[in-house]
């Protein structure tokens, strides 16, 4: 390629695509350039590449994914003996819960990448390019989907090795985990744009992940919960995901339960992603 160094690239500064068809272009309206899908996909690829280049981080994440199931399994295995608990094996019960808790942890840190990008200047570079704001969020969700799929697969296999049973619709566990992760990752991204500093984001994630996990039926059956917690679980997306996943894994999936809960999750994920996209305008004002 052009090796004439004197002026190998006499950059033609006027080369800009036709601008005629702009839709009247409200500030952050439909941006031109690559399509939303294509931009999102390449931003996902960018994050996946970065992940693969950090073997230490990758291996710690994998270890973390496999540690909870045996840990909680041995800690709580007597819990199935509590009257009314009603599961054959605690691993049958626990695996979907650990899947969702791990999904929350992984996706909760999604906003950290955003903050890293703000610190390194990459965020401004992307925002000054015709990158759609929603593509920045969708790219992050795409990455989350890949990570959660692998992580959930590992936990499911581990559960199987420890004696969990899976019914015919068990693949929906992955769907539930991804949808829950979308909600958390999008909120984490949006929060990152609002707070713009790591410490606040870490505090927020730590504040939310464990309480939301324990305010759901992830570890403990609703039948043995205090009444007020049982009420809270009805509004907790973690519980929606766990309930859907547990039903999907059972020998006789309850399609209404699964469909309903996955529907709630999908709707919430969409709202969260749109909110995160809106956070860019707050970010812009603060710049």
């Amino acid at each position, binding site marked *: 390629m052009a090796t004439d160094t004197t002026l190998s690239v006499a950059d033609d500064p006027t080369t*800009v695509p036709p601008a005629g068809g702009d839709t009247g272009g409200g500030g952050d309206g439909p941006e031109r350039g690559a399509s939303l899908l294509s931009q999102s996909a390449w931003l996902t690829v960018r994050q996946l590449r970065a992940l693969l280049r950090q073997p230490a981080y990758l291996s710690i994440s994998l270890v973390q994914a496999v540690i909870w199931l045996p840990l909680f399994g041995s800690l709580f295995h007597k819990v199935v003996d509590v009257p009314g608990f009603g599961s054959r094996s605690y691993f049958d019960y626990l695996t979907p819960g650990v899947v969702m808790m791990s999904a929350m942890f992984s996706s909760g840190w999604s906003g950290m990448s955003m903050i890293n990008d703000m610190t390194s200047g*990459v965020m401004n*570079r992307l925002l000054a390019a015709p990158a759609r704001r929603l593509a920045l969020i969708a790219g992050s969700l795409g990455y989350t989907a890949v990570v959660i799929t692998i992580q959930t697969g590992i936990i499911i296999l581990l559960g199987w090795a420890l004696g969990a049973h899976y019914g015919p619709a068990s693949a929906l566990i992955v769907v539930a985990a991804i949808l829950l992760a979308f909600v958390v990752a999008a909120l984490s991204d949006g929060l990152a744009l609002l707070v713009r500093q790591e410490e606040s984001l870490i505090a927020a994630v730590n504040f939310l992940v464990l309480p939301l996990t324990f305010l759901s039926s992830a570890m403990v059956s609703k039948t043995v919960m205090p009444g007020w917690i049982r009420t809270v679980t009805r509004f907790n997306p973690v519980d929606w995901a766990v309930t859907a996943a547990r039903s999907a894994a059972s020998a006789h999936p309850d399609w209404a339960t699964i469909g309903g809960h996955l529907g709630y999750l999908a709707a919430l994920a969409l709202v969260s992603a749109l909110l995160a996209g809106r956070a860019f305008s707050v970010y812009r004002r603060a710049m």
Partner: protein
Amino acid sequence: MPRRHSPTSPTAAPPSPSAPPSPSAPPSPPSPSAPPSGPAPPSGPAATAGLAIEATGLTKTYAGGVRALDGISFAVPAGTVFGLLGPNGAGKSTTVKILTTLSRAGGGKARVAGFDVDRQAALVRRSIGLVSQASGVDPEATGRENIVLQGRLHGMRGPALAARADELLERFGLAGAADRVARTYSGGMARKLDVAIGLVQRPRVLFLDEPTTGLDPEARAEMWAEIDRLAQAGLTILLTTHYLEEADRLAAQVAIVEGGRIVAQGSPDELKSALRGDAVHLSLAAVPDAGAVSVLTAALRARAGATEVSAEGRQVHARVADGAASLPAVFAAVAEAGLVVTAATVARPSLDDVYLRHVGRRFAAGAGADPGTETREVA
């Protein structure tokens, strides 16, 4: 020697009615001296022909009441280099952020490449390249991936994008490091990659926000050469810097920013001439006696309009409005006093003098600006 780029006249880039190429069009052939021969600029509402950037009364107040911009106005003709000069915190980067749509002005208007930065942000983003102060290199991606991602966001793809990336990597001397992650790059390499990223889609206006801050002298010289090349190819460049020497050398027009306002604006030469203070240093063949000195002083004042005449031994110093042009009058004054000149030196005021005059304090010497005067031996 400083090279300056005279403002290209608006007609230098004849609008061609031919179909504008897609962003993935092959790179234009090398044309070191030819004016940009590209297709017509986007048919945006080009309000003022020939202006690549127009800022009018920009203000910005941050949360907490910090007034970063207090009415910034300037215009940059297409194809020229414009320097925003000022200390840290003066408002340079805020101005760049507003013009590149990263930030929203509190008041005022701005157009870049003919598009309103607020209402047509998407079109502005299509037209610009940004090399921001904080860099924009993704440290976990390779140099090539950084460039290619930017191209993809601009809708480029396939072999054209790959070729463009190769071309830029080659041009910036990064071909050997193209497939290493940018975290391993030196500061100079990362900065070059920043510029390459900013150029991938062939922007019409390039924003360089303190492009050489933190670079060693060698890397800075390379960056200057690169900016020169871009300018000569006809790219419009907005350069912010706190290096006086950099603005003096690269920019056709300079605005000195202080406290969110522009305190002086013009070409570096105009700004210096406005000081009416070139220094003329004469070396005489012999030490003049007191009578000759007083005749010389009076003659210099009368003939060359000199002020601040002083003599020490064989050396005579005076300030004149335009040193080079007044040398004949100076020589005539010397002859009138019956003296003989062996050497004469004209020292133009530096931008540092300009800065001192307008900002009321000397430019931070720690900024590494060249404090020396631009000196021309004339005899």
